[in-house]
């Protein structure tokens, strides 16, 4: 007969392998903002994953808003993207804002560069955003 941990009084808890990895890991949250961007202009951030670590990205969001009040009611289109060692692994477009979670994490091995960026595709000056999040083991 299997002896199970003592769950009385919340002394113990069972985790799936994925959930336990998240508990052990360092949560990572990345965010970029750039203002005064017009059609085709972009900004990005990079993170070189330490050699002994692995980065897991589980979701991303992208946003775009007008810089001038007169443009606030227009379309605010932006394109967010993620690169894993120079390979595009995710694209997310929005008109205003959008977000997704990945059913399987994007895995960035140690020593590789992770890039998160956003393009403005509005015909007026905008502030653009991209954010992504996950954990690092």
């Amino acid at each position: 007969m299997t002896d199970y941990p003592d769950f009385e009084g919340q002394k113990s808890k069972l985790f799936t392998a994925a959930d336990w990895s998240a508990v052990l890991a360092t949560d990572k949250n990345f965010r970029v903002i750039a203002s005064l961007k017009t059609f085709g202009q972009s900004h990005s951030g990079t993170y070189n994953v330490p050699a002994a670590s692995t980065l897991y990205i589980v979701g991303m969001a992208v946003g775009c808003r007008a810089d001038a009040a007169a443009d606030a009611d227009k379309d605010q289109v932006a394109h967010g993207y993620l690169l894993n060692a120079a390979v595009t692994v995710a694209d997310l477009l929005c008109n205003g804002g959008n977000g997704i979670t990945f059913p399987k994490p994007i895995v960035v091995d140690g020593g590789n560069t992770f890039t998160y960026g956003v393009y403005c595709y509005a015909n007026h000056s905008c502030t653009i955003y991209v954010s992504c999040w996950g954990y690092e083991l």
Partner: protein
Amino acid sequence: MTERGIDKLKAGDFNDLSQEELPGGWIQITLRKRGEDRLYRFQVRDLYGPGEDIRNENVEEVH
């Protein structure tokens, strides 16, 4: 000795990273690590590149 934000970034020793574009190719980076009551702010140009340049480093206590 207080750690530098750029060193924490490269070691992966942070949880939250916020980056804002500045004029002239500079970017403003703010780092936070859970359990530490401080923010690490610095400005960098050509991050990870051969011309990497750091300025305006600041460690801010937060409560």
